[in-house]
């Protein structure tokens, strides 16, 4: 993978530093969310199939449409979270937050800690069930100014948030952040 080939250059600052993966439980969270999405696509398809069950000019035999949606959806639910999980990696380094993620669009991002405006830890209902937190990092950047690391154990997310906060507050440079 690309990350492994170029990671050493970045981690030269801290030799023992490694790119970490998310908490495995995030896969279940993603699965539940994708299942909901699949259901949202499946129900209209099923409705369409049912309403056209007895129509004489049906262009598809019964169940083809809803079956396809369901099949693809299930595949999506089963495979996608795993791929996404495997693609995700991040590291909190002395001066930056590094992350690499994306299945189709592979993205490597370096956020210098001094550029962070503020940090949140957020949690939705499903994530709360699994005691996971999402680290949301806000920068003043012009595009994708919010960077999100999903699926961290809540305690760890809060610890990272506090570390970043401390780093920013102890900045010896008193000039404006931007």
């Amino acid at each position, binding site marked *: 993978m690309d990350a492994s080939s170029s990671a050493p250059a970045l981690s030269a600052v801290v030799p023992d530093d490694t790119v970490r993966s998310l908490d495995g439980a995030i896969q279940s969270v993603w699965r539940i969310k994708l299942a909901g999405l699949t259901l949202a696509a499946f129900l209209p398809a099923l409705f369409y199939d049912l309403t056209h069950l007895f129509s004489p000019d049906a262009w598809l035999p019964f169940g083809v449409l809803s079956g396809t949606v369901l099949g693809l959806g299930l595949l999506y639910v089963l495979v996608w979270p795993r791929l996404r999980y495997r693609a995700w990696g991040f590291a909190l380094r002395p001066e*930056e937050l590094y992350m690499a993620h994306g299945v*189709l669009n592979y993205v*490597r991002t370096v956020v210098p800690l001094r550029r962070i*405006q503020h940090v949140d830890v957020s949690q939705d209902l499903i994530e709360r069930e699994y005691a996971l937190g999402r680290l949301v990092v806000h920068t003043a*950047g012009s*595009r994708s100014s919010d*960077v999100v690391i999903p699926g961290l154990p809540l305690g760890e997310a809060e610890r990272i948030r506090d*570390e970043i906060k401390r780093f920013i507050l102890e*900045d010896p440079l008193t000039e404006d952040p*931007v």
Partner: protein
Amino acid sequence: MPASSSPASDPDASAGPENADAPDATDAPPDAESAGTEASGTAVDSASAPASSVTLGAVQEPQRLHPLTLVLRVGASLPALVVILLPTLQNPSSENLVSVILSVVYGLVALPAIVLQYLRFSYRITPKQIVIQKGVIRRQNRSIPVERIQNIQTQQNLVARLLGLAKVTVETAGSSATEGSLEYVSLSDAHEIRQAVRSFQHRTTEGAPADADTDDAPGESLFAMDLPRVLLSGAFRFSLLYIALIFSAVQLIDPAVIGNVVQRAVHPGGRLDQIAEAMGAHPVLTLLGTLLIAGVLGWISGIAIHLARYYSFSLWLDGDKLRKRHGLFTVTEGTIPLGKVQALILRTNPLMRVFGWYELEVQTIGMDVNEQGHRVIAPFAQYEDILALAQQVRSFDLPETFGSVSRLTIRRRFFRYTLALSALLGSGVYAWPADWWHLGGVALPWWGFGLVPFILVWAVLQYRNHGYAVRDDGLYIRRGVISHYLWILPTEKFHVFHTTATLFQRRLNLKTLFVDTAGAATFAYPEVIDLPAVEADAQMDRLYRRFQTLYRTRIEEASGAPDTRLGIEDRPRLPVSKNEA
């Protein structure tokens, strides 16, 4: 260097007593107004520049907006009244009593609301903040710290200009919209407000008294455009937007009305009539005629827009700030602190490029909706002048040669555009009626595939126009054929670093490098598209390393020691051991 902007650092000897005095001075006026004004005057007098004491006294107590604001607001609310009364106006009869009653109710509600709003709105400017109190039902008390203010802009539209009023908007970093807006104050008040805030900012940032620059004393003039230059600049730009607006407006009007107008404009048998008839004779001629008219309209509207926006454009340097003023009907005046310039952008289009004309923009944080976070510094100037001007805004070292991206980008772009064209033409062929225009026995859309060679040329042009250079002082990127950009991103202002690879880029082992800077969203981003993957990652690391080194050096210079936060014990890291335990 801004030394004491952070509350954490010790206040300077000169700033200390002044900051302590200031609240007393501002608290005084409610007790005894005339005495308070004097007190505030003397307090500031003793602390700093006597020249600014007059301005301070004038704005430190709560101020109302200019009374004429009432007139303007009532005027602005009239269109709503017309809409309510529209049925009555069209058809005056007793049946439309409802709308008359509605308008009376409207008057009873809206007019007192305007007056109340006016009465309940007050602003005041203290050495530390601008305080705006407003709201009739829900009181809002907003204070904007002076050191956070990025920009104070005054704007005058035509009516305001006739009445000698101005709208003052205050922008800060970190908020996506204008944070405070004073609509309207008298022009002299507007100048005083800006003057006062500026002198306060000078004092908080430098701990030294503000240089007594009298208002409107032109600093070093950097750039100005006279009328011919503005017209010339407009002539180089088409404004397709306004054509679209005109056409959509035409759609709304009853065709019979247009017919009448055209009939009246075109005398039967006249030359215009003949031309129109000749054009209607053949579809190709009609098409060409339409394009010609659209082109001329776009050209004229381009000139008109430019004239309205940039009439008597002038830019001058005022201490560490750029100030500019321009506009025909609406005169806009704004300030850009040099330190807040995030990136320099040189823009041009092919026509301008042939004659060596360029436009200079800077990226700032305070968001200006009209300019998409980009401020035009010089709308139109020759390349050398633009470069010299840009150097004055921020010094840089433009590289002689730019590195190019991978040649595979031509292939990628060619495939992408051809696919898009095929999708378009394919659906066109599918939907093409049999009795419509057929050329050579096939439906017209098929002929669209004749454009494929041009796509190739286009892709090659895009490749040729795309280049980048990584330098010690920053990243230089140029890109674009129709609107050609040159971005100059200083290392100091780098924000977030990305490399991305889409599914298709990964197949060709390519990546896109993007270094974000602070600012608002725009149309075009300084991306280096389709670099070889290894190079993209290496360049990102290199850029980040430069950024890191720059700030480490700065910290060492400021504190006299390496960054303590990076010590083995103190540096941020994940508590791996605790987590695993």
